[in-house]
């Protein structure tokens, strides 16, 4: 059974204070690892997909990296508008290809 664990559960940063969010996973065969951002009361918004260890993707102040056991979402010089819950999900080769298994998320608050 695929499993995803995200840490920390909550993180409070000051504006400009860089940090990283962790996503640890166990899958029988990784097809893809996905990062989403979710604002309160809204649906998740897609950020990145990573497919193989060593891969990195960037978007503005966010950079996602992937190893064989975990993924990191690095946030460089965050701004208050980066405050949201960040969700990680994995897709494996077993079973139905489209299914995702989600972690419970990291709730990020960026203050002035």
């Amino acid at each position: 059974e695929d499993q995803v664990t995200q840490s920390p559960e909550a993180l409070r940063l000051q504006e400009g204070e860089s940090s990283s969010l962790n996503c640890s996973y166990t899958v029988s065969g990784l097809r893809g690892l996905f990062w989403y951002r979710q604002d309160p009361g809204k649906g998740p918004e897609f950020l990145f997909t990573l497919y193989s260890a060593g891969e990195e993707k960037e978007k503005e102040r966010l950079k996602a990296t992937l190893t064989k056991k975990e993924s990191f979402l690095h946030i460089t010089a965050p701004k208050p508008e980066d405050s949201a819950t960040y969700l990680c999900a994995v897709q494996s080769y077993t079973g139905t290809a489209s299914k995702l298994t989600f972690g419970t998320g990291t709730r990020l608050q960026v203050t002035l």
Partner: protein
Amino acid sequence: DVKVTQSSRYLVKRTGEKVFLECVQDMDHENMFWYRQDPGLGLRLIYFSYDVKMKEKGDIPEGYSVSREKKERFSLILESASTNQTSMYLCASTTGGETQYFGPGTRLLVL
């Protein structure tokens, strides 16, 4: 841009009522999904559909059913609503097993 819409943002229903939640996507995606999201439990898959009239149970299908009569529309049905079905319901769609795109969600309260 992919657009996934859900019929209601907020819904209040009574215990025992039959509840319909509708989801529509405009990108001709084959696969559609229904999740519920609860604090501390994350997103859990209820049902998904990989083609018209085709459906498969997810991790928590009990108390729910689905309908997909047209490719763009996927409905979630609560046969007899109960208070433990109070939750945020999220619909998603994708094609070919790639990125899932989510709707805005329906927050359901069952009294």
